[in-house]
């Protein structure tokens, strides 16, 4: 049942200070599968100039729901890295 080690396409969203640190709000990444959210973060930080200014263990969401860094991602997922929340 485990996925083959093919490439996954995921959309990575960055907000607030993370968007400013990385110089972008959105990137599409092709990551080797299977991959967790932590793998996607690691791949992003190593692949884009300035991306390593984003923390290596940020708060994250997958498909608009809070997710742990060990959550396994699927092709087409929307992954968001969330700086410290300041609503309310």
């Amino acid at each position, binding site marked *: 049942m485990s996925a083959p080690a093919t490439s996954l396409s995921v959309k990575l969203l960055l*907000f607030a200070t993370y968007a400013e640190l990385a110089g972008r709000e959105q990137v599409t990444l092709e990551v080797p599968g299977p991959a967790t959210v932590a793998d996607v973060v690691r791949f992003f930080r190593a692949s884009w100039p300035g991306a390593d200014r984003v923390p290596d263990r940020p708060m994250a969401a997958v498909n608009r*729901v809070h997710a742990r860094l060990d959550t396994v991602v699927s092709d087409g997922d929307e992954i*968001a890295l969330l700086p410290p*929340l300041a*609503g309310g």
Partner: protein
Amino acid sequence: MRYLTRSPIDPGMLTVEAAGPADGGVASFIGLVRDHHAGRGVTRLEYSAYEPMADGEVGRIVREAEARWPVRVALRHRLGSLEIGDIAVAVVAASAHRAPAFEACRYVIEEVKRRVPIWKKEFYADGSIGWVDPTATARGDQSRERPDAAALGQVSE
């Protein structure tokens, strides 16, 4: 979007939205833009959000409160540019009695602060600008520790 707005918030309208003729107690919380933060003068601020997730997460929190207490909850969170004294967020919980209204209202605002992906950029009196990080201050300015990603992730599972 149901819970996020770029227009001024009217708490009276939220009370009408939440309360019916069987309700005797309405507890509300209004968050206002303060003229100071962590000892610095603030002149205005901007709220931004991961909008579809923020709206969905507020909806989950409201449904949690309405399942746990006999209440109806109305809520708005403002986005965009706000001035000092503007209403940033309003939570209204209506119930037949006051105890569940208070408890639900407090629960909702605490969870909103803990879980909803909204960010605040402050514009200071000295001309500088900063993103607010409630996890970075030790001034007692926030009542909650930063939730770690694992704890929040479990909420969604």
